[in-house]
């Protein structure tokens, strides 16, 4: 008797995409095939894609220190509702995750309350101050594989070089919030026709581009694995493509909001379109979509960044940066980029799990592996009306989206069902 059988879906398996059933027992996939026998529970997946649960390399769970925005329980519940089974928690909490005991705190809290697997990223520098190395060895021993001062770039090239050399020897990844702090300092939105019309200080594309270019040079020098967070410009995509061609160990992510929106949406001065890097020009959006399709951009990462109403229901310039995204990233990627099933799961699950180092996630389904699975209907059109996050700073609410996570299974347990 199986615990659960998924029937009738189009399943991404280790032998390709097949119309088969999937049986789950004790948290693992027991069998894949047809006529698998009786189960305590059966879920009809007719018309849906079945594949490895989504993996987010870039989530702000806000715990510890900012629990009024989100916590590990609410953030991972939002993840489960969006089809995620694993997330990397960004370390710009209070205190920032710059030492081993802090990363272990996140892991302990997650064991108690999370609906997905959670691994914390660690800071590159102490206190995210950009000056001295964080406790990189301690963090590594606590399970950290991604090191970043996300929320800020490491401004000092010499500090970054040293940190890259150290992380390279550990085998980790240096992930950069690739926005130059000086070129972006005064700005609130993309520098272009809309900022000019609104009289608002802009952030030029070059703020991203100069930092990515510098970091690529340093990655080549140090041999570090380098990951560009939330790519936003056409030139950034070209820089990553050229670096890959040059044999540099580089990966890149794009957020769902940069796939769906552009600076025209900021004309409303609605603060739910304020984030860093900013929404750019439609030509950048087109380049990001093409980059994700071609694989120059490896993954979709949400940059899920909950902010409370008191931090968003204010004039645009006063609002904090960030939008939530875990619940809608799969839908937006499906609707905006229209990938086939295998590429879709590659960008949403397989590649992020491989880069972030989640051995039990992002694997095409096969007998014997952990049952971390999403059932995703790529055709359904729906309009999200609410959120399970603690925060409502979501530009997707009230908009038509295409595709939806129907059921999410984490280690064999159903964490979300529509």
């Amino acid at each position: 008797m199986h615990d659960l059988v998924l029937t009738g879906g189009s399943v991404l398996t280790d032998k390709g995409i097949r119309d088969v059933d999937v049986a789950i027992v004790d948290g693992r996939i027991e069998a894949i095939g047809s006529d698998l026998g009786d189960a305590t529970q059966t879920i009809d997946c007719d018309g849906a894609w079945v594949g490895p649960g989504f993996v987010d390399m870039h989530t702000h769970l806000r715990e510890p220190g900012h629990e009024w925005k989100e916590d590990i329980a609410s953030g991972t519940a939002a993840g489960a509702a969006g089809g995620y089974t694993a997330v990397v928690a960004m370390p710009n909490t209070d205190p920032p995750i710059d030492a081993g005991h802090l990363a272990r705190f996140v892991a302990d809290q997650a064991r108690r309350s999370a609906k997905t697997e959670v691994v914390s990223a660690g800071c590159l520098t102490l206190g995210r101050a950009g000056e001295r190395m964080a406790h990189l060895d301690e963090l590594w021993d606590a399970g950290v594989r991604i090191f970043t001062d996300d929320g800020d770039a490491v401004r000092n090239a010499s500090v970054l070089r040293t940190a890259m050399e150290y992380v390279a020897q550990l085998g980790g990844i240096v992930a950069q919030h690739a926005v130059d702090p000086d070129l972006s300092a005064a700005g609130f939105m993309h520098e272009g026709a809309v900022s000019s019309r609104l009289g608002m200080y802009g952030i030029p594309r070059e703020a991203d581009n100069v930092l990515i270019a510098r970091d690529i040079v340093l990655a080549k020098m140090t041999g570090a694995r380098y990951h560009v967070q939330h790519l936003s410009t056409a030139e950034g995509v070209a820089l990553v493509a050229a670096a890959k061609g040059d044999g540099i160990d580089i990966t890149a992510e794009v957020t769902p909001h940069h796939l769906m929106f552009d600076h025209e949406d900021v004309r409303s001065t609605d603060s739910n379109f304020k984030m860093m890097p900013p929404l750019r020009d439609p030509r950048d959006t087109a380049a990001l979509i093409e980059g994700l399709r071609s694989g120059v951009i490896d993954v979709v990462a949400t940059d899920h960044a909950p902010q409370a109403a008191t931090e968003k229901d204010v004039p645009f310039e006063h609002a904090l940066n960030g939008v939530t995204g875990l619940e809608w990233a799969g839908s937006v990627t499906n609707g905006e980029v229209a990938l086939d099933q295998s590429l879709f799961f590659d960008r949403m699950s397989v590649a992020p799990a491989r880069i972030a180092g989640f051995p039990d996630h992002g694997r095409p389904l096969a007998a014997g592996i952990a049952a971390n699975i999403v059932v995703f209907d790529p055709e359904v059109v729906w309009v999200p009306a609410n959120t399970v996050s603690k925060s409502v700073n979501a530009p997707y609410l009230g908009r038509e989206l295409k595709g939806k996570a129907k059921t999410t299974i984490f280690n064999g347990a159903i964490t979300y069902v529509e």
Partner: protein
Amino acid sequence: MNHLLSTEHLDRTEIEDLLDESDGFAEVLTRPIPKVPALRGKTVATMFFEPSTRTRMSFEKAAKALSADTVSFSPGTSALSKGESLKDTALTVRAMGVDLMVVRHKATGAAWRLAEWLDIPIVNGGDGAHQHPTQALLDCLTIRQRFGSLDDLRIAIVGDIKHSRVARSNIFAMTTLGAEVVLVGPPTLLPIDPEAWPVTVAYGIDDILDDIDVVYLLRVQTERGGGSVFPSLSEYTSRFGMTSARFARLKPEGIVMHPGPMNRGVEIDYDVADDDRALILEQVSNGVATRMAVLFRLLGGEHDA
């Protein structure tokens, strides 16, 4: 018209109706008793989150000339300094029973937020470097009184256009009324995308001066004089200032305008500012009449009913 937030989407008829109304109120202001009972019983709140004396006084004078009551808000002495949000401040003042708010705020879009949060007309008294629509209306009124019409006039707006809500408001109002606008300034103070605006651009005032009807000087923010966006104030004056020598080259009917407060000796020579063809004080007087027209338009219909 439910609010006055921007000149960008006003059409020619809407602007001309407001200017006609302003001319009428300008006449009221010349009477022995410069006051009409049009808005008796109404309350206008001036919510200036950014320091301003002249614009606030102008709105309050306009409201009083229409017999409205005024209440005012100043950030320095308010609950804002105790951490109250803009939204709560606005809701609180509304709950006192005000009928219209004039808002000035350093953030772009602040007036739009108030229009969303509240159920009364909002007048944008200046939001960041974005819009300041009553300034543009009073400027157009001043030009129209002098020339009869803005059609085919050539107007040069000179100075820090990039950071100017006065320029952004005037560009739309003036061109909608048929004028041709030339932006003049150093590249660091011009919009980054001049081709997207209904204007032409010149980098020196001497190239275009002979052919200009109105020279509209913007205030140089002297705190920008330290080499951040132009080399020095004296170099600014030598390239863009309305010096006596340049003023002498202006056509005989040409005029000079300035939204104030002006820096004599920087963007405008001491003597030029006092010349009969510098209409700076007419602009100020017209400001009251224009704001009467705006308040009357937004509150008056209901009163007459």
